[in-house]
């Protein structure tokens, strides 16, 4: 009898509108803290939760409540998605559903990517997470397929090829559901790809539109490619999920570096590489764009999170889009029009002197001009950027951005550019990093004012740069993690470390916080990987690989 009742209850709850989340649920993500439905914990990608049960006064009582192995040694970068008590996580090999309260595995579906795929992956074999909508779980695969799984069983419902991986295309991006359209990006700007966004029908997998991010013969901006054919291998990948403003019905995606890095074969500004683009989800139309780095020769991807907020600009409240760009400038744009409101350096940089606020263009330094002319250039920031992808958080109450930033240079020099060959690296620049000595400052954890780009506080990071996103909470806390495995909480007012726990491997992922029956939890994935975890493997040789999910709560007593 008990079984019958339980079955009836399941049917009832799933027949109702509660089982499948709606577009309204997605818009309101962040308002019901039991769920985390979007990349960035809300379409605005603030990575801020007002939850305050876990706070400065009790953080020392935070303990692990469960962990789940992910059977993957390639690295974990994903943000978990939580819906109705079920947590969905992904990596390059698996999509996994877990009971959020106990960590018990509900289903696990394998990704069958060809074992040769990693040769077209620049920066770590990984996956940034899934999207959920209307009873389905969506993800991308390393060999550039977009897949829909049944949310209850993990069974594959449809699978569509986005691009040909042997031509250098790959996917690690978490999909975005905006205005009923499933939107995915692409990786591969080091392999001579032509970047794009795709729109799909989430129900059927039907391809709705493609918006190439290098302007072709029929696109506005085609004359920014000289010779005109160079757009074909022009890069401008879209490997970090865009944010979305449902009122304006605009998505904000960043685009990657122009390809190849060596500009010999592509004179001109090269639209829409190294830009922020505002895109209509139904059509893929680019409504406005802001190019941060015209004729990029630095690998200045502009793909980092575009954080949406309403802030005061010269005493006037403005709806803005903010980005701490790889190139070292913090851009604040009017998100309705694309008007540039501020562009101040947040890190050490020597490739440009400033951004001309009249033209919106960076003014390149003498050093940068010499680099263009063929001389070696010790460049600040390094090719990894003043900030890499690890996403910043924004607390609307303090008005501050909280970020893990980089503090290093690298020496770049133009090389002879080998002719384009499909599926091989197409770069033509040599990049060397200086030796990092024990104790060297390699980055900062900092709280930054968006309009001045100056830190309210900053804490030096030594030895290994941080490659984990930031989470800010109403409890006055920041959560992030280190390559060496520590998951930590800081006082958001001072940057002081209040708590840390060594997880089983390196942390280079995205923490989230959520509630179940009124109790607050914090979850993060552990599993050394990604760009830095892969490149710095020798320095990190004593950090074991192996992925797992970690969920923490305050100890009851």
């Amino acid at each position, binding site marked *: 009898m008990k079984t019958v009742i339980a079955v009836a209850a399941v049917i009832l709850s799933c027949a109702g509108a509660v089982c499948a989340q709606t577009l309204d649920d997605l818009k309101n993500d962040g308002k019901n803290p039991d769920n985390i439905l979007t990349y960035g914990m809300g379409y605005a990608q603030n990575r801020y939760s007002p939850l305050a049960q876990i706070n400065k006064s009790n953080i020392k009582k935070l*303990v*692990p409540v469960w*962990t789940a192995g992910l*059977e993957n*040694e390639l690295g974990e970068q994903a943000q978990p998605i939580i819906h109705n008590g079920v947590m969905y996580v992904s990596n390059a090999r698996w999509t996994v559903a877990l009971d959020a309260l106990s960590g018990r595995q509900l289903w696990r579906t394998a990704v069958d990517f060809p074992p040769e795929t990693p040769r077209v992956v620049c920066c770590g074999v990984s996956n940034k997470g899934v999207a959920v909508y209307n009873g389905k779980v969506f993800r991308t695969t390393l060999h550039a397929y977009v897949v829909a799984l049944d949310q209850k069983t993990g069974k594959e419902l449809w699978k569509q090829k986005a691009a040909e991986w042997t031509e250098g295309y790959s996917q690690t991006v978490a999909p975005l559901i905006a205005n009923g359209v499933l939107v995915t990006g692409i990786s591969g700007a080091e392999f001579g790809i032509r970047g794009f966004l795709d729109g799909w029908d989430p129900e059927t997998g039907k391809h709705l539109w493609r918006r190439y991010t290098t302007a072709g013969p029929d696109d506005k901006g085609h004359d920014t490619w000289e010779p005109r054919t160079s757009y074909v291998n022009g890069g401008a990948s879209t490997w970090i999920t865009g944010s979305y403003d449902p009122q304006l019905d605009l998505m904000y995606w960043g685009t990657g570096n122009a390809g190849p890095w060596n500009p010999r074969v592509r004179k001109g500004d090269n639209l829409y590489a190294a830009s922020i683009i505002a895109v209509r989800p139904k059509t893929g139309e680019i409504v406005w764009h802001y190019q941060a780095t015209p004729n990029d020769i630095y690998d200045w991807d502009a793909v980092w999170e575009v954080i949406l907020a309403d802030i005061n600009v010269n005493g006037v409240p403005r709806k803005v889009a903010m980005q701490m760009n790889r190139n070292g400038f913090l851009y604040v744009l009017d998100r309705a029009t694309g008007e540039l409101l501020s562009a101040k350096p947040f890190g050490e940089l020597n490739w440009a002197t400033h951004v001309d606020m009249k033209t919106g263009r960076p003014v390149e330094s003498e050093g940068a001009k010499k680099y263009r002319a063929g001389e070696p250039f010790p460049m600040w920031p390094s090719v990894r950027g003043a900030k890499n992808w690890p996403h910043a958080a924004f607390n609307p109450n303090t008005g501050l951005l909280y970020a893990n930033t980089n503090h290093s240079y690298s020496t770049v020099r133009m090389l002879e550019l080998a002719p384009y060959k499909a599926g091989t690296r197409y770069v033509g620049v040599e990049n060397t990093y200086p030796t990092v000595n024990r104790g060297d400052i390699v980055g900062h954890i900092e709280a930054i004012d968006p309009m001045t780009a100056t830190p309210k506080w900053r804490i030096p990071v030594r030895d290994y740069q941080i490659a984990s996103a930031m989470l800010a909470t109403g409890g006055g806390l920041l959560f992030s993690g280190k390559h*060496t*495995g520590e998951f930590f909480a800081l006082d958001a007012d001072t940057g002081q470390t209040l708590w840390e*726990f*060594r*997880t*089983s*491997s390196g942390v280079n992922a995205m923490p989230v916080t959520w509630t179940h029956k009124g109790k607050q939890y914090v979850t993060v994935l*552990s*599993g050394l990987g990604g760009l830095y975890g892969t490149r710095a493997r020798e320095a990190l040789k*004593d*950090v*074991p*690989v*192996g992925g*797992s999910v970690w969920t923490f709560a305050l*100890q*009851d*007593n």
Partner: protein
Amino acid sequence: MKKILGAIALLAAAQSPLYAQSLQDLARDGKGGSTDNVLTYGMGYHQQRYSTLKQVNKSNVKRLVPVWSTSLSSNYGEQGQPLVYDGIMFVANAEHTIAIDVATGKQLWRTPVEFDPATPRVVC
């Protein structure tokens, strides 16, 4: 200066008889030997797997929580009993032998076992 002192301390420790455990240490394991160490299979030659420690007890076991974790990077299964000596934990599986700092969980070293990939066919 601090570094030099550290080096001297290490040298002193290496030369003292404490550094290498003796047959006597092994015999005393689980029988009045230091509870800081676990030196034998079964926690004592008698394999009683019994420890007199009672700091963790019935009244407070609900407050027992993980303090660190470390990945063993093996998909084959873990059956090993850890040994602990002088603040270092030694763990083994089919693929690796690993030394871990007991206080922090930090891996100190890891040595792969290079067994012939065909071996599993003679493993029941």
